[in-house]
């Protein structure tokens, strides 16, 4: 279980409590956070759940797979070193308190 704080491009900040195994994409969409689409339903196929993860916590996440790295090349907003796809990050205790910023656009 982990409390994750999503900050939308508007500045709106929302903290949600996610059960282990939920992806950040699922957590955001199920909790009414705007700014994450996840059009493919979490298959790492559409690149519309782009997010920026708190840089100091990058080491707490499992590294991006080759497939995710490739799909990150296709995100609509600027790709940064802390860019990830929210559907590929699964909640666990290691992510407690994680801060995630969302880009202004996903498509």
């Amino acid at each position: 279980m982990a409390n994750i704080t999503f900050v939308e491009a508007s500045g709106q900040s929302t903290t949600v409590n996610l059960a282990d195994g939920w992806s950040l994409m699922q957590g955001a969409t199920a909790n009414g956070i705007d700014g994450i689409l996840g059009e493919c339903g979490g298959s790492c196929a559409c690149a519309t759940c782009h997010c920026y993860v708190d840089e100091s916590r990058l080491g707490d996440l499992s590294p991006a797979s080759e497939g995710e790295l490739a799909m990150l090349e296709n995100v609509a907003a600027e790709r940064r070193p802390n860019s990830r796809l929210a559907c590929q990050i699964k909640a666990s205790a290691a992510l407690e308190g994680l801060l995630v910023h969302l880009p202004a656009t996903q498509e």
Partner: protein
Amino acid sequence: MSAAIVIIGAGQAGVQTADALRTGGFAGSITLLGNEAYGPYHRPPLSKAWLAGEMDSAQLVMRAPEVLARKAIALRTNVSVSAINRAAKLVTLSDGSTLPYTGLVLATGATPRSLPLPGGDAQGVFALRSRDNASAIAERMAICIEKQLPVIVIGGGFIGLEVAATARKKGLNVTVLEATPRLLGRVLAPVLSDWYADLHRCHGAALVLDARIAAIETDAQNTVTGVRMADGSVYPAGLVVVGIGVAANDQLAQAAGLACERGIVVDACGRTSDPSIVAAGDCTARRLADGSLLRLESVQNATEQGKSAAAALLGLEKPFTATPWFWSDQYDKKLQMAGLSMGADQWAVRGDMGYAGDTSIAGSFSVYHFKGDQLLAVDSVNASKDHLQARKLLDAGVSPTVAQAGDLGVDLAGLLGR
């Protein structure tokens, strides 16, 4: 009346259209009508992680109710539309009430084809389209596990093969019956069809190609017990999943006199033959510049046509002309397809296909389809980089030669002139 847009269908296309209307500045009312019990949810996981029991239903949510409310999108579930009155600009709902519209969006989806055989409607025979379908299949799978009954999948297309892979993951005995000589024959190159056949066999699924099915066998309670073939042999089954394609839900549109041909005919902007009515997603058939019709059933088509349709209702032109793309997850393989392979006459393989059953090979490769010298489509297996590059090549109309496509030493991105 003030501007009121009614959207029939609360799936991917309907939701996208509603979103795009608000993003585009539409300030009138938006009513989203869904004929299922649930609000908008993701369908793609239904044949995969959700069916495997790796997700709960809350994880399928596409847009939470509060998001729809914030955007003033009025969602109504469990409601269907019985008629469209174009002259009066009204839709009649199943409960007899009417809703006026100034703009109407048809996002009615598609319905799986049912098995036109004796016993095709037996208990334990299912298609997979909705959450309820997936729940019924999951329940039946649990019974099959308990009673050690085999699962038969009819149709070696994407849905069928994804269900077969999920059933194998759950340890079920699975046989896929495919009527043609190869799997995914209408989309994949022969060499990749064969590779997928190996993949399924190596994971323990049995495949029967050129299958001739005579009937579904049932017990006295009309519950499936097996599938009888034309030669009289019987495959016992506790569950039959039918994935033999879908038909566009264009009945309402037809009854209202809109142009329909294997779907609701739309232009690249999602416009139907009535200027107040647009359509998006699986229910449509797009008229191309050469006069032919293109039917696509995909998430990308639903979202892009949704955006086009919303723009059209706002008086803008936003044609959807991007390269079509699709994906399918089976076992640990992600197949990503770009372009339309129909008519291909030669193929190049980029990377090492290896043997599908050999887990020591990463199995990252792509198959390039050509018609003559022209690149038509690219199918990538665990090779997202190739896939995205293919979309760019196809969008730009840039074609590598067959030799270049098959040569890992040639940087295909270089052909894009960047």
